[in-house]
C-alpha cells in the first residue's frame, strides 16, 4: 500500500466523518427550525390568552362532582330542589334534601358553618364564618344588601346580581330568583332518579329486603329503573356503544369479504391479465386515497345519518387497505404447497382451497382482527360526523358544555370499549392462529 493510497483512504474517512457530523448536527437543527416554524404557524404564543382556564377548572371539578340547586322563585315564593338544576333531577313535591330544614324560614346548611336562610318576603340571610352576616332583600328587579363597599374577591355584587362563591357552595341572587348550589362528590342519580322508589336504598335492601314497589319484584324493578334512568340514559348509552361496535364489525368484516376475491385479481400469480391486475390495484388505491372522511360525507348524503353510513364508510375505505394487504400476502404464497395439492389431481378451485387459503388465512385473520380493534376507534370518530353511536353522544354532551360528568362517563366507557375490543381481538387471534413465534 503506497502513501498515496493511504492518504486517499484517510481523505475518504475524513469526508465520511464530516458528512456524519453534518448529519448529526444538521438533522436536529432542521427539526428545531421546523418546530419553530410550526410554533409561529400555529400561533402558540397567543394560545395562553385564548385558553380558557375557567373552562378547564369547571371541566375537572364537574367531572367528578355534582351540585344540588335550591332555587326560590321570588315572584311566587316557590322553592325547587333539583340535582344539576335539571327537570329530570327534580325532587318530587314534598321531598327535599335533608340539609334543608324549616317551613316558614327555609334553612340551607351548606356545612362547616355556612348557612343560607330564605326568609319570607324575598329576603335572604347568608352566614359565612369569619365574615359578617349578609342580608339581601329582593324588590322587583333590584337587590338591596348590607354588603360593605370593599368586597373580597369571592363576592361579586351589583344592584342587580350578587354572586358569592364559598368553598362549601355557590350562591347567586337576582331580583327574580335566589339560588344556592351545594356541591357533592360523585355522580348523583347514577343508579336511580329521584322518582324511583329505589332511590337511596342500599343494595342489601334491594336484593333481600321488602318489596319496595308493590307492582314489581325488587330486582326486576330496580334493573328497569336503572336501565331507563332519564338522567344518565343507560339504555341509550348501551345502544350507542353497540352501534359503534356494530359499525366497526360490519365495516371490517364486510371489507374483508369484498376484498378477498378482489385481491386474487390484484395478485400477479393468480391474475395473468395485466390490465385487470393494474385496474384492481388502482381501484384499491383510489378507495383508500379518498379516505373515510370523504366517504362518510358522500355516503351520509345517500343514506342519511346513522350507523349504516358509518359502517359503509369503513367498509369502502378498508376494502382498499385489505385488498392491498391481501394481494401482497397472496403474492408471497409458497408454490410448493400448491404443487403438492396439484399432484394429487386437484382442480384449480381445490388447489386454491387447500393450497393457498391455509397459507394466507393466518395473515388475513391477524390483519382483520387488528383492524377490528382500530376500527372501533375510527367508528367513534366517524360517529361524530355521520351521527351514530357513542361518538355522537360524546359530541352532544361536550357541546352542551354543562354535563361534564356525563362527558367523563362517556370517555371512560369509550376507553373501556376500545380496550375490550383490543383484548378480544388479541384473544381471538391466539385462539384462531396461535401465539406469535
Amino acid at each position, binding site marked *: 500500500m503506497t502513501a498515496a493510497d493511504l492518504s486517499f483512504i484517510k481523505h475518504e474517512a475524513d469526508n465520511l466523518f464530516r458528512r456524519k457530523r453534518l448529519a448529526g448536527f444538521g438533522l436536529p437543527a432542521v*427539526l428545531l427550525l*421546523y*418546530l419553530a416554524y*410550526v410554533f409561529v*404557524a*400555529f*400561533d*402558540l404564543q397567543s*394560545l395562553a390568552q*385564548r*385558553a*380558557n*382556564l375557567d*373552562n*378547564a377548572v369547571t*371541566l375537572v371539578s364537574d367531572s367528578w362532582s355534582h351540585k344540588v340547586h335550591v332555587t326560590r322563585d321570588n315572584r311566587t315564593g316557590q322553592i325547587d330542589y333539583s340535582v344539576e338544576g335539571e327537570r329530570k333531577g327534580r325532587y318530587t313535591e314534598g321531598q327535599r334534601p335533608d340539609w334543608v330544614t324549616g317551613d316558614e324560614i327555609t334553612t340551607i346548611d351548606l356545612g362547616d358553618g355556612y348557612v343560607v336562610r330564605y326568609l319570607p318576603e324575598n329576603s335572604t340571610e347568608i352566614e359565612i364564618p369569619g365574615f359578617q352576616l349578609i342580608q339581601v332583600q329582593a324588590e322587583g328587579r333590584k337587590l338591596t344588601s348590607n354588603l360593605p363597599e370593599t368586597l373580597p374577591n369571592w363576592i361579586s355584587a351589583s344592584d342587580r346580581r350578587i354572586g358569592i362563591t364559598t368553598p362549601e357552595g355557590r350562591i347567586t341572587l337576582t331580583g327574580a330568583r335566589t339560588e344556592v348550589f351545594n356541591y357533592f362528590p360523585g355522580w348523583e342519580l347514577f343508579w336511580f332518579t329521584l322518582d324511583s322508589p329505589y332511590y337511596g336504598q342500599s343494595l342489601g335492601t334491594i336484593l333481600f329486603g321488602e318489596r319496595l314497589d308493590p307492582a314489581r319484584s325488587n330486582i326486576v324493578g330496580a334493573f328497569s329503573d336503572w336501565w331507563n334512568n332519564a338522567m344518565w340514559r343507560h339504555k341509550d348509552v348501551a345502544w350507542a356503544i353497540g*352501534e359503534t361496535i356494530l*359499525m366497526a*364489525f*360490519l365495516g371490517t*368484516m*364486510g371489507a374483508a369479504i369484498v376484498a378477498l376475491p378482489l385481491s386474487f385479481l390484484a395478485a400477479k400469480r393468480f391474475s395473468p391479465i395485466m390490465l385487470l391486475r393494474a385496474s384492481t390495484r388502482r381501484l384499491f*388505491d383510489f378507495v*383508500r*386515497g*379518498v*379516505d*373515510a*372522511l*370523504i366517504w362518510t360525507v*358522500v*355516503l351520509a*348524503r*345517500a*343514506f*342519511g*345519518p*346513522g*350507523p*349504516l*353510513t358509518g*359502517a359503509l364508510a369503513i367498509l369502502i375505505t378498508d376494502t382498499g387497505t385489505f385488498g392491498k394487504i391481501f394481494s401482497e400476502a397472496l403474492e408471497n404464497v409458497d408454490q410448493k404447497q400448491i404443487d403438492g395439492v396439484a399432484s394429487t389431481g386437484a382442480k384449480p378451485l381445490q388447489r386454491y382451497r387447500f393450497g393457498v387459503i391455509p397459507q394466507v388465512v393466518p395473515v388475513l385473520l391477524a390483519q382483520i382482527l387488528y383492524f377490528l380493534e382500530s376500527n372501533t*376507534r375510527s367508528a*367513534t*370518530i*366517524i360517529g*361524530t360526523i355521520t*351521527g*351514530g353511536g357513542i*361518538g355522537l353522544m*360524546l*359530541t352532544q354532551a*361536550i357541546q352542551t*358544555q354543562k354535563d361534564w360528568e356525563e362527558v367523563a362517563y362517556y*370517555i371512560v366507557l*369509550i*376507553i373501556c370499549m*376500545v*380496550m375490550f375490543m*383490543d383484548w378480544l381481538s388479541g384473544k381471538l387471534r391466539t385462539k384462531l392462529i396461535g401465539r406469535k413465534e
Partner: protein
Amino acid sequence: MTNTTMGMTLSGVNAIQSSYLAQVQRRRLYGGLALLIFVVLMVSGFNIADDRNAGGFWEGLHQIGDYPADVLSEAWEKRADMPALILRYFPALVETINIAAVSTLIGAIGGLFLSLLGTRGLAKWPRLIPVFRRISDIMRAVPEIVIALVLIFVLGGGPVPAMIAIAIHTAGALGKMFSEVAENTDLKPVEGLASTGATWLQRMLLGVLPQVAPNYISYALLRFEINIRASAILGFVGAGGLGYELRNAMAWGPGRFDEAGAIFILLFGTIVFFDQLSSRYRNRLIEGQNQ
C-alpha cells in the same frame, strides 16, 4: 403369524381412518357452525344498522352517485376557477399536514421513550415496565376525537388541540410497535457500552438506536400517513385545517360545490402523494436492512 399382524395393522388403519374421518366431520361441523354464527351476526347486524339509520340501505343505494356527480359536474362547470380555489385552500392543507407532521414527531419521541422504558433488558427501571406498558396501552386506546373535543373546549378551536390529541394517540401506538422491535435488539452493544461506564441515555443512543432506527423510521412514516387522515377528520369537528374548510364548504350546499370539490381533490391528492412517498421510502429502508 403374518396373518395376525396383517389383521392387526388393518384394524389399526381402520381405527385411524375412522377416527380421522370423525375428526374431519367434527371440524366441518364446528367450521359450519362458526360460519353460520358469523352469517347470522352479519345479517342481523346489517338489519339493525339499517333500521337505526335515517335512510334505508336499498333506498339510498342508487343515490350514492348523486352527490359526487353534483359536486363533480359543478366543479367541471367552474373548472376555470379551480386553480384559484386550490390555491385558496392550500394554506389549510399545509396546516393539516403540519398537524400530522408535528404530532408524528412528538408522538414518535414519546413512543421512543415509552418503548425503551417498557422493554425488558433495556428499561431504566425494570420494575416500572408494566407501568409504562399500561400507560402506552391507555394512550393508544383513547380515540383522538375524545382528547381533541375536550381540548377544543379548553383551548379554543385551532390546530393545537388536534396536534396534542393525535400526538398522544401516536405515542401510545408507536410505543407498542417500537417495543416489539426493541425486544429483538442485540444486547451485546448495550453490554459493551455499559462496561465502559456509559449512562442509560448513552447506551440507548449509541447501542440500541442504530439497530432499531430503520424499523422505527418505517413505522413512524406509516403513522404519518395515518395521521394525515386523522388530522383531516379532526378538522371536521373544529380543529382547523382542511377538514374544517370542508365542513364550511359543505354547509354552503349547492352552488358552492366547486369549493367542496376543490377540497376533495386536494385531500385525495395529498393522501395519495404521501402514501406513495412513504411507501417508497419505507421499501428502501427495509431493503437497506436486508442487504
